[in-house]
């Protein structure tokens, strides 16, 4: 009886020992050489797996970073410059600082601004609604208001404003990961540089409708009247397809265009109200002056009118 137990134990121990030796050599032979920096880089990344870098998740990004010869094409929008600096230190490379970006909503068609023409009660998803029709209001370019962007946001940086029916970006939380931009079927969300003192000026409208139709559908629609274009000294405004667009690289944030817009389509984020008020006052004065000048020139016209009158009579 005892002999049988001893024999079994011995056989198993020997088998275990042989297996251990084989396994040791196999593991030496097939060892996966992992870059020791990979773990450090992965550790440094924010591990949000948002895909904002353009790669599927932080691990893939870390692998790409470790393999890269140059860090210039890579950027983690969530971690920003700090994380990229850390990564560069680990890899012993240099990285240039990039401007931080933020998502902006390029539609200001609130419930007040545009009439609701129908009721949508299908699946609560912007893309599905867009596949069915142009929306529960006249504007085919504007926000659908079903909050797909909010659902797409992993950082709780967006919410739907119940009063306006439009999404709002919480600037401090937005990491510019691009998820909302990809989610929006109407391309209303865009990534813009945060800008000096977090100030940004942009046209909060994407309607390419003709001016009359656009204004009928939405009271804050850009009609492409080009007043902002005339006002801008820096060539930052482009008017195309009945729509003005501001080039953020050229914009100097002077905000003069904001006050000339009669439809209030232009939005100035974080520009102090005082500055805008001052500009508006100046603009009003300028308008009055022009009006006065026009009246004066008209009067001078009427003074000249006897001549024209006689001319007209002569024609008759």
């Amino acid at each position, binding site marked *: 009886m005892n002999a049988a137990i001893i024999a079994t134990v011995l056989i198993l121990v020997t088998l275990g020992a042989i297996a251990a030796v084989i396994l040791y050599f196999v593991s030496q032979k097939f060892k996966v050489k992992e870059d020791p920096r990979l773990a450090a880089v992965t550790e440094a990344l924010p591990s949000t797996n948002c895909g904002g870098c353009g790669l599927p998740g932080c691990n893939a990004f870390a692998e790409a970073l470790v393999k890269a010869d140059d860090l210039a094409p890579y950027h983690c929008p969530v971690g920003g410059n700090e994380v990229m600096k850390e990564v560069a230190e680990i890899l012993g490379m240099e990285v240039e600082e990039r401007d931080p970006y933020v998502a902006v909503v390029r539609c200001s068609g609130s419930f007040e601004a545009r009439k609701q*023409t129908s009721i949508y009660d299908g699946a609560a*998803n912007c893309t599905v609604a867009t596949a*069915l029709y142009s929306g529960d209001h006249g504007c085919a370019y504007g926000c659908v208001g079903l909050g797909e962007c909010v659902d797409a946001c992993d950082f709780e940086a967006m919410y739907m404003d119940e009063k306006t029916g439009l999404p709002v970006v919480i600037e401090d939380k937005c990491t510019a990961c691009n998820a909302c931009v990809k989610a929006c079927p109407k391309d209303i969300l865009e990534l813009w540089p945060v800008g000096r003192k977090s100030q940004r000026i942009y046209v909060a409208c994407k309607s390419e409708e003709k001016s009359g139709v656009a204004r009928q559908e939405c009271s804050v629609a850009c009609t492409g009247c080009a007043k902002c274009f005339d006002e801008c000294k820096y060539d930052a405004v482009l008017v195309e397809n009945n729509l003005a667009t501001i080039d953020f690289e050229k914009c100097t944030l002077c905000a003069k265009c904001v006050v000339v817009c009669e439809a209030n389509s232009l939005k100035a984020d974080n520009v102090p109200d005082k500055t805008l008020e001052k500009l508006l006052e100046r603009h009003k004065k300028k308008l009055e002056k022009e009006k006065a000048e026009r009246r004066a020139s008209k009067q001078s016209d009427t003074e000249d009118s006897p001549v024209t009158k006689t001319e007209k009579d002569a024609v008759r």
Partner: protein
Amino acid sequence: MLFDNHLKTFSKGGVHPADHKLSAGEGIEELPLPRSVTIPIYQHIGAPPKIVVERGDTVKAGQVIAIHEGFVSANIHSSVSGKVGKIDPVMDSSGYKHIAINIRVKGDDWEETIDRTDTLVTDIPYTASEIVEKVMQAGVVGQGGAAFPSHVKLSVPKGKVVDTLVINGVECEPYLTADHRVMLEKPHEVMIGAQILMKALGVSKAIIAIENNKQDAIQLLSTVAQGFPNITVEALKVQYPQGGERQLIEALLGREVPSGGLPHDVGAIVHNVGTTYSVYLAVQKNQPLVQRVVTVTGKSLKKPSNFLVRMGTPVIDLVTAAGGIPEDTGKVISGGPMMGKALADLKVPITKATSGILVIPEAETKRAETYQCLRCGKCIEACPMGLEPYHLMLLARGKNTDKTKEENILDCMECGSCSFVCPSNRPILDYIRFSKAKLKKAVKE
């Protein structure tokens, strides 16, 4: 109807919605001319035609105002006489704005070549290619709903042999009665139309398929068919969506159209009853497709009717003629309750594809609360194409468009049986449509 188990029907899936054919007893009534019509140039599947009139031009009814571009496209004719107004994007039943030609009506002058009398022309002196040419010139498209240009269906590609023509008088959508009325009031014309189609296709056999809930039409057409050898009338067991081409061919001939294939792959061609009547008018009377029968119906509507309507007439005119919009209206739908589309605006014009206008009370339009998928498999049982709708919906919602294509989402004909049977009221078809739209765009680009 209760004892129709001996009748043929399709084998896979299908549902039984209540049929509500309220306007089945109402004769076709010609709607008075509207003040102006708005004719969208994009009324069919395929390339949009090229506009050949300008603002201020005077046009006659039946005159070409947009010429087809390419083979899969259709001519558009003016449906009234008058002066061309604005040519601008206008909201149509798709819910988006597309270019349309507005014509202010003045009098009712028709092109001289058009025969508008009711006399029956029985002789068909034309050759097959002449018939196809005439159908093409008249801008005839399928009037069952998809609006596929008919001349394309009549031109069978080389190497394919077609032996049977199927005339689709199934009208399986609840509420709609337009095809039913055409069969009752124009039986001889439909028969001659079928003969013309047979000649164009070179086939010797035609079957007129009618669902068993239209007994009067079955009897009348069977009697008339005695004068037309080669044309038979077949009653089918009532089941939705029997009006789908593939389902109809399977029900009648027992042949299954392969995935991604077309009916001519199995030797059959299907034309709708309304289309057959239009083909008769186009070939024998030179009359282009400028008017069609539209059912205006709904439970609260005062006078459910079948109107003969000029293309481009605003929907509101039809509803007004049927007694006005009832107070309890929740939705106005273009088409039937299963496949139709709710309109976002009542000024939307009637087009070649509009088979009905359905006014639904608010209590019936509200979507019920949705719950989680139970994996009960009812949608799979109901799908006539043998797809897995719940799975397609999940893939579509996850925007996994490539995967939906692998799962044959393009075979879906959007009959809505899955959403109809779902006990959790899930918007299955909404998501499937979305994924299909995405795929089609990708194909176009």
